[in-house]
């Protein structure tokens, strides 16, 4: 990392960890914590979707993994008494594991065929949550306790959220940490050989195989990482809401994850993060349009895709004359 990037990263950390909480404290708009926590977590899920785009697959199924992740964490916490902090990685790993089983057959499909199957996945996840005994049907799982204390050898790393005067700040901090780690991992993937191989897959799978890349393995690997991100995002959401229902993540959420990526830009690691922020706030702002909210929103989206097909971040490219 060169100094300019390092500086940018430092400014970003300062902004999300210090300036934003200060600002919210000064204005007293604590509800902003909730909004920004959602943005951070949604952008974690979107990062996964972006990675599947990076191997050339349109993924409209991230909602399914968010739902599964949410349930895994909720069930483990409420029924087995496992610490939330342990269920977080477990939810991710569980999602990664099932995504391997699902991905092996479906990742052979390309283009619209893969996209359609992933779209169906979200619905399958919802129906499974309704039908399985362990998920408690339509009533869902409620009154999930707040995350407890996380400590190593008696040293408290994270205090019990119940003891915080404002658990919202706790969730906000936690979500932002997750987001930062997620995007660091993503950035590292993209800038290492792993990412170069993903690009080769995106551009030409046959040629990729002919230079010796195990394309089936790489596709499944990328999809598993993607689903891991979806799973931990879902687990966090369930914990914040202290509840999860079959309808907590639906097809519209899967579509939104994809739109965040499109809007931010498929060629930029930080595209999905920016896309999530813009779209989430954009939707809220459009509430002034009342019953026309969805209409205006859709119109603006279509317009943006026409004008900026490579995402909002492609604006930077043009300015620097790299386009």
């Amino acid at each position, binding site marked *: 990392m060169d100094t300019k990037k390092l500086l940018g990263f430092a400014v970003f950390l300062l902004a999300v960890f210090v300036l934003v909480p200060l600002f919210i404290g000064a204005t007293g708009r604590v509800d902003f914590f909730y909004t920004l926590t959602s943005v951070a977590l949604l952008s974690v899920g979107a990062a996964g979707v972006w990675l599947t785009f990076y191997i050339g697959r349109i993924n409209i199924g991230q909602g399914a993994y968010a739902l599964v992740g949410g349930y895994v964490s909720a069930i483990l916490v409420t029924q087995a008494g496992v610490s939330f902090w342990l269920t977080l990685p477990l939810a991710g790993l569980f999602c990664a594991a099932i995504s391997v089983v699902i991905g092996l057959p479906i990742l052979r499909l390309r283009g619209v065929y893969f996209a359609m199957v992933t779209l169906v996945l979200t619905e399958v996840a919802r129906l499974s949550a309704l039908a399985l005994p362990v998920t408690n049907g339509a009533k869902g799982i409620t009154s999930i306790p707040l995350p407890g204390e996380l400590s190593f050898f008696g040293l408290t790393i994270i205090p019990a959220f119940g003891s915080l005067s404002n658990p919202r700040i706790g969730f906000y901090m936690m979500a932002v940490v997750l987001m930062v780690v997620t995007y660091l991992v993503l950035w590292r993937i993209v800038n290492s*050989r792993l990412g*170069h*191989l993903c*690009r080769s897959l995106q551009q030409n799978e046959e040629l990729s*195989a*002919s*230079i*010796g890349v195990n394309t089936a393995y790489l596709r499944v690997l990328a999809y598993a990482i993607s689903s891991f991100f979806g799973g931990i995002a879902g687990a966090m959401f369930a914990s914040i809401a202290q509840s999860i229902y079959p309808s907590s993540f639906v097809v519209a959420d899967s579509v939104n994850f994809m739109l965040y990526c499109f809007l931010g830009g498929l060629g930029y690691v930080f595209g999905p993060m920016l896309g999530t922020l813009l779209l989430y706030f954009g939707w809220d702002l459009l509430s002034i349009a009342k019953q026309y909210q969805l209409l205006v929103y859709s119109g603006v989206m279509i317009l943006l895709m026409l004008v900026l097909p490579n995402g909002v971040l492609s604006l930077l490219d043009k300015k620097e004359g790299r386009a």
Partner: protein
Amino acid sequence: MSTILQIKNITKRYGGLTAVNDVSFDVNKGEILSVIGPNGAGKSTLFKLISSFVPATSGEVLFNGERISSLAPHKVARMGVVRTFQETTIFRSMTVRENIIVSHHLRSRASLFGFFLGTKQAKDDEAAFAASADDIVDFLGLQAIRNELASNLPQGHLRALGMAIGLATDPKVILLDEPFAGMNHDETMKMVGLVRRLRDERGVTVLLVEHDMPAVMKISDRIVCINFGQKLAEGTPQEIRENEKVIEAYLGSEDAAIGM
């Protein structure tokens, strides 16, 4: 002279159409062997069978005595049998150099996770790939376009880049599908020289499919001619040139004169 590749009674059927029909021949180590035949004769299909990109209906391919015909294509590549494509096949949104570097994948000693972490081994690998890529750039005379985006290249350079990608895998046998297509006479002669040097300097065994007969006659040690999926003849350029069946096949086809 030892045999490096044995093609044994290989057959490929697509539905009712037999694209390759019971073809057998051996390839000697270090030779340049051309496969010729009219359009649709089954040459590209034969190459896809050898590199295991499509499964054979029956028959098999042996590489150094080992059966490779049912392996996944990346495993065949790993063993050293690599094909280039008839259609211009490159990584479009990478530069020439990036194309070549990424194609060094088979030579990596670090694991994917090692690359993610940026271990010393991974850094060494990347440095070695970059150096080797520059060698290949020099070898093929691509210095002037090394940082050019592949999608901006003219046809002639694309062919050379396709070969560079193949070379990066460090093949023992390379299968070139129409390497001279779309080139003028001068470019073809330059490419003929390169293919020779590939064999002479890098010890690569070369199989190639080509329609440019003067180039084929000039470059090949031996030629295999196929028509309607079947092997018509096999021999030295001289023998093929005088073979009745070959002449007949070419006279009866659209692309007319064998041009000798």
